[in-house]
Structure formats: C-alpha cells, structure tokens
C-alpha cells in the first residue's frame, strides 16, 4: 500500500485496519494551501520535546494514551508530545468545572490517581501489564459521574479522551485509517453525495465491517 512508505499506523483488520487500501493523504498535499500544509505536515516531523510533564508523568501519560487509542507498537502518533505541547502553552479551551482544577492541574492530578490505583497491585501505572492497565481504566469509566480521587470520574474521562482524540485524529496517518482526505482548500469537493468519490478518494474495502453487526456475531 502506498501509504506504507510514509509509515501507516499498525491496526489489525479485526479492529478496522486496511479498509482504505492505497489511500494516501499526504500524497495529496500539493493540492493544499501553504498555510494549512505547514500546520499539517509539522505533525509528521519531529514531535515537540516534552516540557510540561515530569518524567514520571510522561510515563503514566504514555501508558494511558496508548490504552485510550489502542497504540501498542511503533509507529505511533506522538499523542503524548502533542498533549504536552498544548498543556505547556496552556492551549486549553479556557473553561473548567466548578470544583475541579483547570486542565493542566487536572492532568497532573488524574495521572497521580492512576498511579495510586496501580499501586494496589504493586506497580506504577506505566509498569502495570496491559490487561491490568485496561482494567484500571475501565473501572474509572464505569464509575460514571461518581467520585474518583476527589474528581468526577466522567469529567476526568472526558478530559483524557478529549485531548487524546484531538491529538490522534489531527494526524494524517489516522485520517488514512478512516478514509478522510484532510485539508480541502483550495481544491474543494466536486463529487459530494451518497456513494460518490473524488478521483483521489478510496472506497471502503470492507463496507460491511459495521461495528454493531460485528458485535452481534
């Protein structure tokens, strides 16, 4: 597949991998405007150095984000560096819940909370084996809006997933995985409509991979 030379993300077929064979987002970059191109291609370059997280927090955040996004092996989207850069620059949405710290502190507090949970099994979170990490996270999710280390669990969950998904799905490799062509200026789309493709788009090779139907089988 042509995207392969650019390091397509590993994703096995059972989890939705290989649905858009040969779809190459970055190969279309000559059709993008300069300002957008520089913003998007920067995400493929060297990730920004970690400035906000301590080394220990970086380890916890890396394990957390790998779990949230199912990134088990290289190449990865450097999600933690992207989150760290936002927090270092305080590039948040500004608001915070009454009774919960602003995003930067909430990140630190919640990473500490994960280590506390992990300690019960004798590890820090980052060194907990994959299934143990998954179980800790599922337990946080299952708390719903109950308290978790003094915070509303669902708000912590939403903080994590918001930052993690924003970083991951801003990356051209992730777009290739979902059939999204990314920037569309100045070219635009000439062929909108049900089951209609642009010449550079690739049809889903497995249109019946409906997550619901697969869940039933």
């Amino acid at each position, binding site marked *: 597949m042509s995207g392969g030379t650019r390091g397509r993300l590993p994703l096995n077929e*059972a*989890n*939705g*991998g290989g*649905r858009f064979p040969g779809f190459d987002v970055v190969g279309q970059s000559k059709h*993008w*405007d300069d*300002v*957008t191109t520089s*913003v*998007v291609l920067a995400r493929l370059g060297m990730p920004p150095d970690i400035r906000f997280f301590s080394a220990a927090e970086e380890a916890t955040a890396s394990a957390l984000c790998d779990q*949230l*996004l*199912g990134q088990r092996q290289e190449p990865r989207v450097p999600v933690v560096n992207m989150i760290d850069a936002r927090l270092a620059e305080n*590039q*948040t*949405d*500004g*608001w*915070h*819940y*009454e*009774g919960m710290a602003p995003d930067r502190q909430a990140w630190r507090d919640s990473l500490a909370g994960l280590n506390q949970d992990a300690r019960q099994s004798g590890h820090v979170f980052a060194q907990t084996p994959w299934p143990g990490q*998954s179980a800790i996270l599922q337990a946080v*999710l299952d708390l719903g809006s109950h308290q978790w280390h003094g915070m509303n669990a669902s708000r912590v969950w*939403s903080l994590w*997933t*918001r930052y993690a*998904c924003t*970083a991951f*799905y*801003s990356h051209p490799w*992730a*777009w290739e*995985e*979902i*059939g*999204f062509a*990314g920037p*569309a*200026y100045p*070219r*635009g*789309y*000439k*062929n*909108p*409509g*049900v*089951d*209609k493709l642009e010449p550079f*788009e690739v*049809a*889903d090779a497995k*249109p*019946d*991979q*409906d*997550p*619901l139907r697969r869940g039933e089988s």
Partner: protein
Amino acid sequence: MTGVRDRNESAWLLPAGPGLNHRLREDMRAFNDGDEVDAVIVGCGAGGATMLQRLARAGWSAVALDAGPFWDPETDWVSDEAGSHHLYWTEPRVIGGDDPVPLGSNNSGRGVGGSMVHYAGYTPRFHPSDFRMHSQDGVGADWPIDYTDLKPYYADIEGELPVSGEDWPWGDPHSYPQRPHPVSGNGDMFLRGALACGITAKVGPVAISNGRFGNRPHCIYRGFCLQGCKVNAKASPLITHVPDALARGGEVRADSMVTGIEVDERTGRATGVRYNRRGREHFQRARMVIVAGYSIETPRLLLNSASHRFPDGLCNDFDQVGRYLMVQGAPQTAGRFDAEVRMFKAPPPEVSTEQFYETDPAKPYKRGFSVQTVSPLPITWAEHVAAQGHWGDGLRQYMSDYVHWSCLGALCDFLPQPHNRVILSEEKDRFGLPIAHFNYSQCDNDKALMRAAQSVMEDILHGAGADEVITIDRYAHLVGGARMASGEQDGVVDANCRSFAVPNLYITDGSVLPTQGSANPALTIMAVAARAADRLIQGSAHD
C-alpha cells in the same frame, strides 16, 4: 426596497476571489483615545459589526474595539480542525450548576467577525411565537417588540449575507434571496429519512453564497465552515459588514480588550471605555457606549464595571445582569449506513426541519425543537464515539467506519430561567479582572425536549435506512444575560436596546434576547442590532 449594494457594499469591496481588501485596512480611519467619538462599540461580532456598519454609513464617528485579532482568512485560518483552536474565546471561565455547559470551541468566538467566523452558517428567522412565548404558551417571556418589528430587518440582513434556501413554510412563511445549494450525502440521507417518516424538511437556510455575490466566490463544498471559511463564501461580519464600515469611515481596533465602562457619577452618563491594548491601558472617550461582547462577556463587563452609583455592577440595580442566559439543547444523533455518506464533503449546514418548533398540545412539554444536518469532522466525531464509552481498539474500529455515518443535530428551545446566569468568580484573568462563572441547570421541560428531539432524529435516520443510531448530548449557542424587557425590573435594556439605567449605554448582541426559539441566533442578533441602529440614527431613541 433598495438594492443590497446601495445599503451595504461589502461584497463589492472585497477582492475578486478569496482574501481581504488590505487597502481598506491600511487606509482605515484611526480615532484618538481623546477624541470623543459618537459611539464606541465593544466587540466586533454579529451585533457589534452590524451596528458599526450602520452607524458609519449614517456618518457617525464610530469605532469598534475587539479583544481578538483582525483576521486575514488567507494567512490566519487553516483547512484543519486542530489547527483552528485560536478562533475560540479561550480565556479562563468557570462552569457550574446541575448541567454545566462547556464553552470554548463549542460556543464562543473572538476577533473581528466574532463567533460567526466559525459558526456553521444556518440563518433561520425566529417564529412570531418566540416573541410572545409567555402570553401564548405560559412559559418563558414576551419580548417588548414583535416579529413584525424585526421582519424588515430580517429581509435586509438576509440580502446582505446573503442567505440561500428553499421557500420557507414555517413561522412567517418567506423566501430567500438565493436558490438552495445542492445537497451532499448527509443532506440526502436527511431528506430521504424525512420523506419516509412524513416529515417536511427543506434545504437551507444558510448564509453561504450560492453563486458569486459581489466579488465573493461560490462555495467549494469543502466542509470546514466551523474552522472559518477561507474562500469567503460563508458570511461573517468580517466580510459582510466590516468592509463597508471601513469604507465609510468607521474604525475597527483589534487586539483591544475592554476592561471597564466609565460612568460620570454626576450626570449618570457613560463617558467611554477603558481598554487594554498590547499590555497598555487606554481610555476611549465616547458620546455613546454600545456593548456587543456576547452573552458571557457582556454581563461580565457590566458586573466588572461597578462603581459608587452601581455597587453591584453597571445596570444591575434590579439584579438582572447575567440572568436568563440560555443555551439550546443540541443533541446530535448519528446513523450508520452500508452506503458511504462521507458527511465531511459539504458545508455542515444543509437541510433542516422546523416541523416540531411550536408547542404541540398533544405533548407533555411546551415549545419544541428544530433538526438540522451537522456533519462533524474527525476530531468532533471521535468525541461522539468516545461519548458512547468506546476506547482503545473499540474506538479505532468505530472510527474506521466514519465514511458510513450520517449525523443530525437538534436545537431544543431551552427556557429562560433566572438562576441560569453569569456571576463573577474569585479567579482573575491576566488583566486582573474577575472571570465569569456561568451556572446552568435544566428544567424538566428542557430535559423532555432533549428526549423528544432524539427520538425524532432516530426515526429520520432509521427511515433513511440506518441500522444503528447513537446520540450525544450537547449544547449550542448562547443568548440572553442582559435581556430586553418592557420595564427595568425585568431586564437590562428596553425595546431599542438602550439600557434602563444609563441613557447613553446600549447593548446590541445576543445577550439582549429574552427567548431563543429553536432557531440558530445569529440572523436575529444582526436584525436586532440593525433595528437598534435605525432607531439611533433616526433619533427616536435619543434622550
């Protein structure tokens, strides 16, 4: 009726093709702080820019200060979701109440053009019933003006944006200056599903030019409307009102954060505004102060402008400032099809129905909702999927299915309530000013509307052939917080947007709206501002 160009030349002052007229900015009139301008306007968004353009045309010396930048779409905006974070108002705010409303990207903009820079582009009118909700339905409030008072201004603004859409059968039936756009996969699914359910749905109304308008180009259907339209096809005041304002001698002063409104204790009149520009304090003198900073910043500014005469905040003698703030319940329901919908290949605003807008006596709730196409891009879509509890492998797998999904959004007519309000927090911003604390709690009627809207959207998507539907609860738009009323005990401004407490202080943004209906608010905000400007210019509102 005069032609659009005769009353607002903006589209003809822009260069042919994308981009701004840099000449207009270079030649822009620049008032001095010490000049007593006829009017200083706080905020250059939907309400503020409309006001500026009207006043400048009438020959007033007027300057609009905006806390954000003077955008150049060519260099400052990108065709990318994550790269558009700078379009939002991201100063610190606290949210509370039983149902806190997240802010930021969801509902607040900054910079010249205001929130319309990244609004979707739906521009429906309010229904006549929205103006007399209390007398008709026994909930909410009545406006001190009627639909007919706004009607000519609706038509004017629809011409200036301009708006495209089918003939509109709901509310006060009307037609639009431009023909409807062709629809994409998402709009098509909505139309199919509506047909199958016996629901009337129509294409529009959107402030996206269908065809060339002045020098503005046609939409290229690239789907990044919520990231700012680099093409100049989608209307925002930056291209629809600011160019004409500048050409007529109005000034737009960007990067200027207004921190206080000064009132002369002796005369009781406003004398101008304090503002911070590039770290330095300034004071702009003015004969009249017009506030248009949107529903959170407008009440915050009033509360932060307390004085000896107004110890609890400017215009707050009756504890009305910041109250009756509203969001619309905006659940989004998505449906999965075996066919490829590719909802990102079009402007998100395409098709809507207002069939459920009015109170239905057969239902246990009052008022109603509208349904529209929304078409989230990948990051926003991932939020949808994550909200269903998917993460890890499940999330990736669900996301790989993106091209098969179609997505609708509802706007529920949440009722105005006194305890939904902005107050000042103990936290301060970088100017040392208390930040806004915004509390929101839904009432039972609000919750019932959310559920009803979800079930209609599910029906439509199933009707179109979806095998699975998922819903995320969201909230959109902000109006109220300094509402218009017939008396000073019930609101902050009168029918002409003049504050009850200070005769030369006006508010002309979304915060003056007493109710919101199920319509997106920008058109109404502009129409209210245009009407207030007319009143000012005619002198009928002069003290």
